[in-house]
């Protein structure tokens, strides 16, 4: 068995061999070379991102480790603005002649695009920053031996398999590190070190006689923390409970379709916030930049400042400074400092997510540091900050919210999800569905999904529990853009109540 010290030594050897990507002085040199070549070629603005992305996953099913996968990707991307048009090129060949060729390719693209550009790109003023920032984590997850990770997962699997009726369980742990360097022709030099962790499992119970199977996934969410987040989470205990609940789901009654009051737990509601508020408040979508892929938005600029998106309980905040939020940074990929700002204030739509380039496209809408690229080889564009439902000064509890429900359903966990390309019509499932009758949680239900229209749903919100019950949910993989990019993002909330939402039955006989 390799000790922790041996593992650290192996990791250090990896870093040392990562050529120019690892050293600050080498990065500065590469940046100077690229920025001066861009300036010489006539660029009005240029930036260079030199980054390394490490990813480690441990995957198990039942009593065996399926695989241990590590990946590291490093390289650089050069972005130039010339004649009012963008050009970008990237490579993992760090030789000087290649760096010059990559800059020339970016210039070539900008020049070709400028000929068909209808109006020049304009950038909001920005100061130069020199900074070094590290995300908040205590234990670097890459220093934990993989055997310890595998042992934890197998222990969780055993706990689930110990429940009579459980047939299968798969589980995984994932660690991510982003070592990012940014330099711009404005003079910025920014280093950021970001660590994220994730864990979870899926337990399945099968009734072979009936040909029926039901699963229960972990309620754990990824987070911008280190190994301490995995250690604090009761994964083994939850796996045992999940086993019992998967078996109970096989026997649970199928939901009767109709209108129900819903009490949505943060382990579930984060995804509804993501889809129905996170995406429609993106300015690029609202203006048609995503029309060919992710879609547009019903929150068009004419609605700004006056559209009643939700009830007075609904206060949505965008925040790239939130501790442990997956989209939290100190500076975005334009080199602009991270911000916190309201999107929905007491139910009214008041602002968008924006970048430096988008400032001024809509009157009164400023830049909000939402530029991001998911790799050194990806082009920078507007990506989602952490968007959360702020409980404000609510004093309510989940129990009090439940006490005022006659006929409802409590939903926990992330299930099936789908929403239209303008973010109106959506359908969400979950992991656990508990019937609420006359203020009390009664029995488990199955085959539950709810369908609604975004403004009707958020206007049906009549209670948010206090900050004491606030949790962050999130995902490592929010897709957007062409070529598609994947962004990590968090959404926080407390248990929240909605009145009279349409519930459908997704079961076989429905």
């Amino acid at each position, binding site marked *: 068995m390799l000790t922790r010290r041996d593992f650290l030594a192996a990791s250090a050897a990896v870093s040392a061999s990562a050529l120019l990507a690892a050293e600050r002085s080498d990065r500065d040199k590469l940046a100077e070379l690229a920025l001066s070549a861009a300036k010489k070629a006539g660029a009005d603005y240029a930036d260079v991102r030199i980054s390394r992305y490490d990813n480690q996953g441990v995957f198990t099913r039942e009593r065996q480790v399926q695989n241990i996968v590590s990946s590291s990707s490093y390289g650089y991307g050069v972005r130039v603005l010339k004649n009012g048009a963008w050009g970008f090129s990237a490579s993992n060949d760090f030789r000087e002649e290649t760096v010059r060729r990559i800059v020339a390719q970016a210039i070539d693209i900008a020049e*070709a695009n400028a000929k068909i550009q209808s109006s020049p790109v304009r950038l909001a003023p920005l100061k130069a920053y020199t900074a070094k920032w590290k995300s908040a984590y205590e234990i670097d997850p890459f220093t934990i031996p993989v055997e310890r990770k595998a042992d934890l997962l197998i222990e969780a699997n055993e706990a689930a398999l110990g429940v009579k009726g459980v047939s299968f369980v798969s589980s995984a742990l994932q660690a991510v590190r982003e070592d990012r360097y940014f330099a711009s022709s404005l003079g910025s030099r920014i280093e950021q070190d970001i660590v994220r962790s994730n864990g979870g499992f899926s337990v399945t119970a099968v009734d072979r006689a009936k040909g029926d199977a039901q699963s229960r996934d972990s309620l754990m969410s990824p987070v911008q923390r280190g190994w301490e987040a995995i250690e604090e989470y009761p994964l083994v205990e939850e796996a045992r409970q999940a086993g019992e609940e998967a078996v109970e789901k096989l026997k649970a009654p199928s939901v009767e379709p109709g209108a129900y009051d819903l009490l949505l737990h943060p382990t579930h509601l984060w995804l509804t916030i993501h889809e129905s508020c996170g995406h429609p408040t993106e300015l690029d979508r609202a203006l048609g930049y995503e029309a060919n892929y992710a879609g547009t938005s019903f929150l068009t600029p004419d609605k700004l400042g006056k559209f009643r998106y939700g009830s007075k309980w609904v206060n949505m905040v965008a925040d790239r400074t939130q501790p442990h939020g997956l989209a939290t940074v100190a500076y975005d990929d334009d080199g602009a400092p991270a911000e916190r700002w309201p999107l929905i204030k007491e139910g009214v739509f008041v602002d968008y997510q924006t970048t430096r380039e988008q400032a001024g496209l809509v009157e009164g809408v400023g830049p909000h540091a939402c530029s991001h690229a998911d790799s050194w080889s990806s082009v920078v564009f507007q990506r989602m900050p952490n968007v959360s439902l702020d409980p404000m000064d609510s004093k309510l509890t989940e129990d009090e919210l439940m006490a005022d429900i006659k006929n409802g359903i409590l939903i926990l966990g992330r299930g099936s999800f789908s929403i239209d*390309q303008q973010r109106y019509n959506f359908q969400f499932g979950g992991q656990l569905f508990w019937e609420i009758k006359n203020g009390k949680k009664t029995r488990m239900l199955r085959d539950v999904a709810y369908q609604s229209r975004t403004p009707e749903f958020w206007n049906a919100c009549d209670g948010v529990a206090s900050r004491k019950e606030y949790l962050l949910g999130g995902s490592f993989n929010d897709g957007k853009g062409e070529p598609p990019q994947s962004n990590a993002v968090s959404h926080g909330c407390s248990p929240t109540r909605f009145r009279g939402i349409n519930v459908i039955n*997704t079961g*076989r006989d429905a």
Partner: protein
Amino acid sequence: MTREEALELTEKALEAAKVPEVEIRLASRKHGFLRFARNAPTTSGLTEAGGATVTAWKGKRKATVAGSVDLANPENALAEMRRLIGEAETSAALSPEDREYMPLLGPQEYAPIDAWDADTAEMSAARRAGAVADAIGVAKQKKVIAAGFFENVGEEEALANSAGLFGYHRGSVATFSLTARTPDDRGSGYTAVSSHRVGGLDFKETAAIASKKAVDSRGGRDIDPAAYPTILEPQAVADIIGNTLPRVLGARPADEGRSVFAAPEGKTRLGERIFDPRVNIYADPGHALIPSSPIGPEGYPIRKADFVREGVLKNLIYSRYWADKHETKPGPFLSNLVFDGSSTPLAKLIAETERGVLVTRLWYIRSVDPQQALFTGLTRDGLFWIEDGKIRHPLKNLRFNESPYRLLQQVEALGQTQPVVAGERYQDFRMLLPALKVRQFRFTSVSDAV
């Protein structure tokens, strides 16, 4: 990275291995792209990237390590590959034993696939901008606003292992897609085309088709969400069948009772006529219109193979381990998908429809229940009502809860095939699919989205 370069690099790298079993997969990719919106370019770029994925086994202990490799510079590349092998060996030593261990495959025969076009792989920025300018020109003439994406990829892959296996494949692809929206935001239309030879793409025609759909779809009317006879254009067939069916063909989930192909009492549907007898679905990496890689998982060759023939489920996909356990052959694996059609044009399918819905594109499709292969999603960018053999008017978009499994039992007619690009996910997966008319498609609610 030529075949010879890949062979030399992998041979030299494998010599450095300290464990008897190592597999190396190399990939080199050049990717040019130009995105546009509001009738103007937005983001674009040209990226060059090389990488290697190394799996090492120490006895039955296994680990996989992937990393960037500067394949343009053989000296650096070799050093980085050796480092990755060392790292995989170190991690393998730490790993618990793999209970599903299978020894490495020895040398295999791969069919030569003609999938490379230098003109496509090496396209210039000016050529991309010219094509986009042509398409935007058409959109402006038609008084619509265009957003879209044009990309060209040249990709080389090689797989080698210490048991003497070596495979090499290279392919190119150019893909152009365009969404046209009317200035009043009441109409939207989409078209995408793709080929491994860019010379075969018509950018102006693509823009004209999307523009017409946008104009024709203005002001969609309400219908009650319910089950209707429905014609799916090939793009919509790609979205609901092409993107979902290949992902549920695994033999193991079926044997374990948790897939749509599972039958009661621990059996599967293999050999059963489960679909309409006109349904033929197969993999064909050598297909002239959609050539794809012949190198499958662990180096197992991908060959032409039936999954559904005359409605009968002919094959499910066995991994090497699962095949060994069930005393059968591994595979068949797939890197593309063909669904046979007929000679009937779309216009005739419409002319022969008394009442029904025409779907041009589907979106945001997610699994609701894997056991039923039940998916939910929405129509998008052009939905129309057909009555007495004619398109009568556009419809408001609709949400569906439907199963590709059920749709293939509900076939009324098949139309002509065309190469299609997956819309939301799996865009590298190439498919040749027909228009499809089904007796019923289940819509569950109305969407206000345009």
